[in-house]
């Protein structure tokens, strides 16, 4: 494997690690949200969760295709503290998506070929999800 290919796969692995964390945190945030009293927020969290699961699968497939073992999830991740309300859940989920967007943007130049394309596609998805959680559109998300 060349150095460029290795760096590209490392970028995908780093994104995969981010997705493992995002799935864990969103699962916890969803557990704090009532689908009855806060249906919009519950829907946004569920959509985000599904999106992150799909992203994880796509990234893992790229790593496997490169002949490498995909990075495994950690047993536990730090959860946002002092959430306390639906507004707190929404803010925590938005921060998660903003961090995910920024991470994808930082990883994209390190990847090449289809790896880079996938990272930017997932970057676009993360940026769009921010709007579902109350963010305003920006000219350059992730910067």
């Amino acid at each position, binding site marked *: 494997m060349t150095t460029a290919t290795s760096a590209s796969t490392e970028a995908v692995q780093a994104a995969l690690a981010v997705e493992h964390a995002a799935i864990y945190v969103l699962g916890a945030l969803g557990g704090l949200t009532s689908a009855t009293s806060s249906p919009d927020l519950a829907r946004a969290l569920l959509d985000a969760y599904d999106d992150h699961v799909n992203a994880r699968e796509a990234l893992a497939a790229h790593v496997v295709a490169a002949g490498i073992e995909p990075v495994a999830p950690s047993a536990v991740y730090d959860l946002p503290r002092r959430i306390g309300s639906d507004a707190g859940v929404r803010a925590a989920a938005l921060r998660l998506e903003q961090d995910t*967007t920024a991470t*994808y*943007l*930082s990883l*994209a*130049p390190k990847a090449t*070929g289809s790896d*880079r*394309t996938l*990272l*930017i*596609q997932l*970057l*676009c*998805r*993360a*940026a*769009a999800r*921010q*709007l579902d959680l109350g963010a305003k*559109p*920006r*000219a*350059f*998300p*992730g*910067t």
Partner: protein
Amino acid sequence: MLSRRTAVGAAVIAPLAASACSASETLDPVKAPPPSTPPAPANPDQSVIDATVAAILGADKGSPSAFVQLHRVHIEALAPTKGVTAAPTTGRWQERQLALVTTLITAAGRAADPQLITLLASAAAGQQQLLHGRGLA
């Protein structure tokens, strides 16, 4: 009549002026060549930038002002060659704006400069946000 100090000074300066600064060797400041400034190296990504800006301009015809305003910011950041014109396009404005996300992602895939890759990727995300906000993506 020269004073003693002036006469001594003139005697010291005169040989120097005659040898080092003779009229034939003094450069005319008007005709002097400009300092050496080699042309800036060509940006290997310029064709990617110009093609992307042409696609953006083409997609903007008939599109809502929110898209046009967003793209003004993107184009300014991309710094295309002067005189880039809109690429010919077909279809409804919604389809053209959707296709622009793919155009920006493809351009980011072709670019070599990491800063340009970041710029194009982020612009694609901004375009996706605007489309998503309008229920188009």
